[in-house]
């Protein structure tokens, strides 16, 4: 079938999205920052946003590596 590798790449992306969701819910969601008074919510959000951004960067790097691995032949061609 044409583009078999692309189907596989989509499937891997899907698995990574589900795994990433698991990380977000089971780790980041439980982080609670206290001791800053009215700024608690804001600081909590900034830290969670920072971790989420790091996760996104890691996700992009993983996808990039997988892309090179799956499409090595095509890209080098």
């Amino acid at each position, binding site marked *: 079938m044409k583009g078999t590798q692309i189907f596989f790449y989509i499937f891997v992306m899907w698995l990574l999205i589900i795994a990433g969701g698991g990380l977000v*819910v089971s780790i980041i969601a439980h982080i609670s920052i206290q001791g800053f008074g009215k700024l608690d919510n804001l600081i909590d959000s900034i830290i969670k946003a920072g971790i989420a951004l790091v996760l996104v960067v890691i996700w992009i790097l993983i996808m990039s590596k997988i892309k090179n691995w799956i499409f090595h032949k095509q890209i080098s061609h």
Partner: protein
Amino acid sequence: MLDRTIIGILISAVAFVTVYAITPSLIKILTKRKMVVKDYNKEVATMVARPGGPSILVGILASELTLYAFFPSNEILAIVITTTLAFLVGFADDRKVLGGWFKPLALAASALPIILLGAYNPHLAFPLFGSVKIPELYLGLIIFIIPVMGNTINSIDVLNGVASGFMTIASFALTICLVIVHHYDIALASLPLGFVSLAFYKYHKVPSKIFPGDSGALTLGAMYGTLSVVGHVEIIAAIALLPAVINSFLFLSSVKRIIEHRQIKANPVVHTEDFKLMASTDKSAPVTLVRLILANGPLTEKQVGFVIFRLALFSAALAIITSFMMEIRI
């Protein structure tokens, strides 16, 4: 439930018939005003009317406002206003090429009605693991999601019929997903997107009589993004768009900066002698979804379109599976 079914049939018919009926007139008007562009993938020089955004918007407004007359809600208002604002951004870009960052910023501003109308729930739902409440972060996500989805659909608008055909598959999948997660009202509001895309596909498919242009692609993408927010199915909606996401990802990771497709110097796709599409061997050309599809050998424009539709169907199936997984907790 019967009421919803009847209204669903009514607004689907309004969406489909409106676009199906007015697009030929729009093609005539655009051609008369010389608002045409060259279709570079045709052996014989062919000029195609552009943009088709106005007929897409009219179809969406007619059907969503009909729905609003029966079931008034802030969610429908948010869909109507955000989609219209995104159309205006795209239409401005169709008429006069906008600066690189202006379009994403203007699209981000188009998302503000969703926040101002309170048509969102600041919980991000994930399959298997539950949801996470992110009140402040969610506002940023709304501002981010509309330009991203708009541009993602715009980036897949590369061959005859691909953007409209792809959106038909993705939006009907989204409707099914919304029903599975019991968001019936938003499922109803999502029906016009699929039927508008389907009616537009009739004129956009190979050989295209009209191109959607930025106004059409951004309208479809922004409405899809708004539906994902007001229907609380952001992750599911992103999964249904994965082939288009991959296209944007491959493009960005090869050019390593945000640029418009028209700024590309080396074309990722070239033509064979019999005018089939063939992957470029130019190493400076960006890697795109179409280029990867063509890596195994030349194909006609129609064949490439069908490979993209098969990928869209695969992603749609994954999105539907994900919707069922929303009910499961581990």
